[in-house]
């Protein structure tokens, strides 16, 4: 077989499995599924080299709908299983699909530790601020006071910011997008290209239990005033008329300002994807006080866990020689009993 044989070009359709997609009609998951299929096809990824790992929850049905390798695991543990997959075979393109309950509640510990180890996995966290599969309890990202079946008097849990958690966990790539937003494909593609753990929070509408939770960020009339699209090296400008921006006040705190009357784009904060403190500040900006940042907040180059592990194996073999069954048994003090 010639080695330069052309591999057939795959389309998004080729990445669709033969299983009927069973999310509720109108669920934001459909849009994300379509974008992911398009991105992996566009990037020329091979089906046999691609693995989708998930935990439990609506989003975690995702692997069944991809014609790749897939593992629908147990609640919260997908990051640990994905880490095992990468240790066993670092060549695989591993994706992890999780939700706000799976990834931040029961699986919060594993999320933190996969990110800090920088295992080369693309983690998509579908945040709908609700438990959908168990029929509508509040989640770790539900807002305070939220009334649900399990919080009829209003939730008294302080919600957390997935982006802040990811940054604090030393993630090397942190981004955010919205299920129905065109920018989603670009964010997913950049996450896929990033070597190391890529963390992408995706605002996703649960049209059954938490419909319109992200209306402010998706409604055509208001969204441009409520989100800010990040571009590396560009000033933080937003608004329907692109007349608003973010600047730092005297105490280095972000503030929304209107352009004009002496304030120009040059006075605004410039987005720097490589600045950890800047990224953390962005992760704390939330509606309605601030426009919510969309796009890549943070990105740095860092070594991956599975590569460092393989390197240690390689170096040990170079230094000590490859161990064999004979050297294995002999490796400690032995003595001989004469006949």
């Amino acid at each position: 077989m010639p080695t330069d044989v052309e591999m057939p070009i795959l389309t998004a359709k080729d990445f669709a499995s033969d299983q009927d997609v069973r999310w509720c009609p109108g669920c934001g998951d459909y849009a994300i599924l379509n974008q992911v299929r398009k991105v992996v096809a566009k990037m020329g990824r091979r089906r046999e080299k691609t693995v989708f790992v998930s935990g439990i929850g609506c989003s975690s049905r995702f692997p069944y709908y991809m014609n790749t390798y897939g593992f629908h695991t147990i609640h919260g543990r997908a990051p640990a299983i994905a880490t095992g997959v990468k240790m066993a075979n670092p060549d695989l393109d591993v994706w992890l699909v999780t939700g706000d309950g799976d990834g931040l509640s029961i699986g919060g510990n594993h999320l933190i530790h996969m990110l800090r180890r920088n295992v080369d996995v693309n983690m998509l966290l579908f945040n709908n601020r609700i438990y959908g599969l168990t029929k509508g309890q509040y989640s770790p990202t539900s807002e305070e006071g939220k009334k649900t079946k399990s919080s009829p008097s209003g939730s008294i849990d302080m919600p957390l910011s997935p982006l802040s958690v990811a940054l604090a966990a030393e993630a090397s790539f942190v981004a955010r997008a919205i299920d129905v937003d065109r920018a989603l494909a670009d964010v997913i593609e950049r996450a896929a290209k990033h070597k190391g753990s890529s963390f992408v929070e995706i605002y996703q509408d649960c049209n059954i239990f938490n419909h319109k939770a992200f209306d402010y960020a998706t409604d055509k009339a208001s969204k441009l005033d409520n989100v800010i699209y990040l571009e590396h090296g560009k000033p933080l400008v937003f608004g329907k008329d692109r007349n608003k921006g973010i600047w730092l006040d005297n105490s280095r705190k972000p503030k929304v300002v209107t352009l004009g009357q002496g304030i120009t784009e040059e006075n605004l904060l410039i987005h720097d994807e490589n600045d950890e403190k800047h990224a953390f500040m962005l992760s704390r900006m939330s509606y309605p006080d601030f426009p919510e940042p969309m796009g890549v907040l943070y990105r740095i180059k860092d070594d991956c866990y599975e590569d460092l592990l393989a390197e240690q194996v390689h170096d040990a073999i170079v230094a000590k020689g490859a161990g064999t069954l004979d050297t294995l048994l002999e490796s400690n003090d032995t003595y001989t009993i004469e006949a």
Partner: protein
Amino acid sequence: MIAGSETGASAKDTQKIASAVVRFAGDSGDGMQLAGTQFTDTSAAVGNDVATLPDFPAEIRAPAGTVAGVSGFQINFADAEIHTPGDVVNALIAMNPAAFKAHIDDVEQGGIVVANDSEFNKINLKKAGYPEGYNPLDDEVFTQKFKIYRVPITRLNEEALADSGLGSKDVGRCKNMFALGLIYWMYDRPIDQTTSYIDNYFSKKKKMPQVAAANINALKSGFYFGETTEMFPVRYQVAKATITPGKYRKITGNEALTLGLVAASKLSEKTCIYCTYPITPASDILHSLAAMRNYGVKTYQAEDEIAAVCAAIGVSFAGQMGVTGTSGPGLALKSEAIGLAVMTELPLIIVNVQRGGPSTGLPTKTEQSDLLQAMYGRNGDCPLVVLAPQSPADCFDTAIEAVRIAFRHMVPVIIMSDGYIANGAEPWLLPDPTTFEKIKVEHPTDPDSFEVYGRDENLARPWAPPGTPGLEHRIGGLEKENISGNVSYDPENHQEMTNLRQAKIQKVAEFIAPVEPHGDGSGDLLVLGWGGTYGSIITAVDRARAAGRSVSAVHLRHLNPLPSNIGDVLKRFKKVLIPELNTGQLRMIIRDRFLVDAKGLNKVQGKPFLVEEIEQAIELMVDNRWPDRVSVIPRQHKVSVD
């Protein structure tokens, strides 16, 4: 008290004995484990059979001088084959009053006690909890019962090392070597193996030649003290055992398990990836494997027990050898994930080094109380394979067999080691690697014939790791349709799959050799055991047989599935006794499966069985004195019928 010996100056009698049990005991910072290990290595090298029992507190440094902080190391060495570290202590080395207090009850009548007299001062006696003004070394209760030698080890060691150039703290750290040197002299053993160990460790590895020299000096001083002083009228000799000639090494259960896992990785040509979370008494397996990167071994210290088992499952899914190791509390945390491996029919190795439970329990003490957890401790009907090694060296073979079964049958396998065999040591005749049978692994490549949950003759499904073109598929914890592997909620399918998962495990029995009773094929009593109790049970059964009783033994390595002939074997004996370090877990399984009125000898005291405890239970059964109850418990080593 060095002087004052009543024997003549030249009278150094040498007495030949068949075996001896020596116990080193001191503060947990006194280096007793090292002294014991060195004594073991030397005894093995001179040709004795050896068995050891380290015993240390859960606290790394409990308050110095207290009974809670005492660390002990027992070694039995003999001129014949032995299986246990010994029931009673012939010689105790007590480095302080707390060690004396903690261990004196185990010393035989007339036994030797070498007490570090320097430490029997007011403060230490108080720390050990003795009343003011009392010194047990002066108490006639003890001086008449034992041969007590009061050796001021601390002071003699300080004097020997006065010119060593070391500070007083470092000098103090050498006193274990002084004690070891003295005991080497007492049992006529050479010191050279230990001197070369010290030299290698301190001079070459740690680059501390001064410390090496001091330790060697202390060792020699202890040895010469024994030779020169007139305190000891007699020294002892234990001749070489008649041992199969060949190359040996002394090995602990955790070491043997490590080597077995690596050997299995070589035999199957799979990368061993050990995913674990530190837990006593399993952590040493991680330490050993972490240092074996040049064998291709990868180790992963996970954030918790659950992540550890999940990573191992990820490894198996991706086509390599996924292993996780833990102890009882960790096994509990892993149970949901183990269910996932059962459901997805992936190979997985779970090492469980049992310790006293429940909850945190007794982390450093041995027990066999996780059997039912291993068998049934998961949601749903969730069978898997359970194996148990019977001795330290046996962990090697058990690990290889576990991997072989996991790969052949696509099932998780739990290896039930325990704290006793994990830390205990015995001589191991090195096997010939050329005789090892390869572990065959086949991965499908043909898309046309591939079915995700298709079945081979063993009911195993194909193992198709990611990376194989055309075999892309999805698996998960939801019930699967047989053959296709698609998610299925069909009632009949769930019934069939539940039956299949059970039948798959039962298939493993076809590869297990039938059990052969040790002794006779039938008789009055069968003593049935499993795991680390092997040595005590076999020794007790041999003694009962020597006394003319009709007793035989079967020791189970395969707990699930059981060997296929076990039911028939049980029927050929009038009575069945099951000694276990739990409240009767195997007994429950045996009674359930075979409707046999098996009785139990059950002990949960953090210690292995003494041979005499099992002997007493055997006698009760054979001599028809067994009380009207299903099990008996030894208290203070006496099995009471009251």
